[in-house]
C-alpha cells in the first residue's frame, strides 16, 4: 500500500479539521478525496505532502515513516489549485526546477524537460513566462513540474477548481489518460462529485474531519454507507423514511402496488427529455421524482393529479438520517 495514514488528528484553534483519520491509499491508482469545503480533505492532503503537520498520528509513504520528514525529503509531487507557478522563470525552467535542485547533469535535465513538455502539450511554449499562458496551460505546466522529479506519489489539491467549466472537463479527461500512461500513485482533492465519479479509481469521502466511506465509484453510488455519502454523490429525496434517488421512484396513477404512497403533483418542470415533479404525499412529505417525458405523457400527468409512489426494483436506499442534510 502506497500511503497509509493512521490516527491523524489536526486542529486549527478550536476547529477540528481532522478527527482520528485512518485511510489507506493503494499504489498506482487514481484516488479522489471527495467532500464538502471545510471538511478536512485539503488538510489531509497537505499533511501527506508535509506542508502541514498533524497534531498526532502517523503518515507512511511507500513503507517509509514520513510523519516527521520535512516536505523536501518526501519526494511527493504537489499541484496547487492556483498553480503556484514560479512567475520569474520560463516554462522550461519551472519544469526543470526539481531536477536542478537535485543537481542532475544538464543534458539529462534538458532531455527530461522536453519529454515532459511534450507529455503536457506545451513544447512550443517552453521559452514563455507563465504569465503568457492560460489557466489550463499553467496547471499542465505545474503538473509537468511535479512529475519531473519522478515522485513516489502525486498529490493534487483541487487542481481544476480555478478553471472554467469547459477547460475543467478537458483537463479532467486528460488527467485520466495521463494517469493511464504514467501510473504514478495519484491523489486528488475535489468537492465535485461528478469529477470524482468520472476520473477516480477509488474515492475517499471525507466530511467534518472524518472518513465517511472508501470505495470504487460504483460501490459508493450503489451502496452508500450512509445518507451523507448518498446525498453527496447525487440528488436525493425522501420517501417513507428512506433516502433514494428521484429517478428510482415509480409513479402510477392508480394504487396497484402494496405500500404505495399517495400524493398530489404540486409542481411539474420539463427539462428536455425528462420531467421533474414535486409530489406532496398524504404523509406530509415533499418528494422529488424524475420521470421520462414519454412516461409522463402516457400517464397524462399534470399539476394537481393524484399519483401513487413506490421505490423502483433495485433502487439504492438508505435509512433517512435524523436530521436530513
Amino acid at each position, binding site marked *: 500500500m502506497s500511503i497509509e495514514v493512521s490516527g491523524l488528528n489536526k486542529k486549527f484553534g478550536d476547529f477540528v479539521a481532522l478527527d482520528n483519520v485512518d485511510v489507506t491509499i493503494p499504489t498506482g491508482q487514481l484516488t479522489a478525496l471527495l467532500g464538502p469545503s471545510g471538511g478536512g480533505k485539503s488538510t489531509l492532503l497537505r499533511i501527506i505532502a508535509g*506542508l502541514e503537520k498533524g497534531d498526532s498520528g502517523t503518515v507512511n509513504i511507500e513503507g517509509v515513516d514520513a510523519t516527521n520528514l520535512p516536505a523536501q525529503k518526501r519526494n511527493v509531487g504537489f499541484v496547487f489549485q492556483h498553480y*503556484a507557478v514560479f*512567475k520569474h522563470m520560463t516554462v522550461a525552467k519551472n519544469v526543470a526546477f526539481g531536477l536542478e535542485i537535485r543537481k542532475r547533469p544538464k543534458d539529462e535535465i534538458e532531455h527530461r524537460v522536453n519529454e515532459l513538455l511534450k507529455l503536457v502539450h506545451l513544447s512550443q511554449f517552453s521559452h514563455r513566462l507563465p504569465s503568457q499562458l492560460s489557466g489550463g496551460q499553467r496547471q499542465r505546466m505545474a503538473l509537468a513540474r*511535479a512529475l519531473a522529479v519522478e515522485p513516489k506519489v502525486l498529490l493534487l489539491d483541487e487542481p481544476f477548481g480555478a478553471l472554467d467549466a469547459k477547460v475543467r472537463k478537458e483537463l479532467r479527461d486528460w488527467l485520466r489518460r495521463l494517469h493511464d500512461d504514467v501510473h504514478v500513485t495519484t491523489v486528488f482533492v475535489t468537492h465535485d462529485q461528478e469529477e470524482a465519479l468520472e476520473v477516480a479509481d477509488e474515492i475517499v469521502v471525507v466530511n467534518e474531519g472524518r472518513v465517511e466511506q472508501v470505495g470504487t465509484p460504483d460501490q459508493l453510488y450503489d451502496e452508500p454507507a450512509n445518507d451523507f455519502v448518498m446525498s453527496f454523490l447525487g440528488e436525493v429525496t425522501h420517501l417513507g423514511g428512506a433516502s433514494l434517488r428521484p429517478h428510482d421512484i415509480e409513479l402510477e396513477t392508480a394504487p396497484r402496488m402494496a405500500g404505495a404512497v399517495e400524493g398530489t403533483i404540486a409542481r411539474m418542470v420539463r427539462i428536455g427529455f425528462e420531467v421533474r415533479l414535486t409530489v406532496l404525499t398524504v404523509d406530509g412529505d415533499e418528494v422529488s421524482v424524475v420521470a421520462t417525458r414519454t412516461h409522463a405523457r402516457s400517464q397524462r400527468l399534470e399539476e394537481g393529479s393524484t399519483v401513487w409512489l413506490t421505490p423502483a426494483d433495485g433502487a439504492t436506499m438508505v435509512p433517512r438520517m435524523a436530521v436530513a442534510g
Partner: protein
Amino acid sequence: MTYVLRIVATAYLFFLVAWPVSLVVTHTFDDGFASISSLLQDPDTVVALQLSAYVAVFSVVINTLFGVGISMLLVRQEFPGKRVLNAMLDIPLSVSPIVVGLALVLVYGGRNGWLGPTLAGWGFDVIFSTPGIIMATTFVALPLMIREIVPVLEEIGIEQEQAAQSLGANAMQRFWRITLPSIKWGIVYGVVLTLARSLGEFGAVKVVSGNVLGQTRTATLVVEEKYLNFDQQGAYATAFLLAMVSVACIVIVAIIRPKNHS
C-alpha cells in the same frame, strides 16, 4: 472636472516641487560650470562628498540586509509583540531626525553615554565619528526598505515556496531561487529610496557628527555651512550634485524596470 483636478495637481507640484528645484539648477549654472568645478577643486568639499557617499552605501547595505530579514519575519511569522515591532518600525519616520541624533548621543556619547565610554575604552568612537554618522543615517532610513518589501511579500504569498519545497528545495535554496527573485523590484526601489534619503540626511547627522571640517562633515552639512557663509553659489552647486544622484537613481530604475512586471 478632470481638467480642474489636473490643473490643481500640476500647479501644486509646480509651485511646491518643480519650480524651487529648477531654480537650484539654474542658480548652479549661473556662470556655466564654474561653480561645480571650483567645488570639486576644494579638497574639504570633496572629502565631504566622499563621506556622504560612503555613509549612504553603508546605510543601504545595512538597511537592505535587515530590511529583507525583518520583512520576512513580519510577513511569514506569527509571534507575540509583532504589532509592537510593526509600530516601532515607523518611529524613524515619525520623530524628527534631531531627536534621533540626540538619542544616539545619549547611548553612545563618548563621555556620558550609556555604552559610549565602554566602547571608547576599546578604542571605538561612535559619536563625532563615522560610525555614528552611519548609525544615524541608517536609523532614519530604516523603514523605507521594509515598507517596500512587505507588500510584495504579502502579495506573492507562500505557495511558490511550498511548491519549491515539495520539489526538494531546502530553506536556503527556496530563499535564493524563489523568494529573492520575486521581491527583487521591491528591493531595488527600497535601495533607491534608502540611498536618496541617506544622501540627504541632515538633522541627525548634524547632531552626531560634530561637523569637523574635512573629517566628519557630510555634503548636506557643507550645503548649510556654505549657505550660512554667504557662499550661495557653492551651496547651490553642492545641493545640485546631491539632488542629481537621487534623480539619476529614480530615472535609471524607471528605465530598466520591465513594463509587464506583475
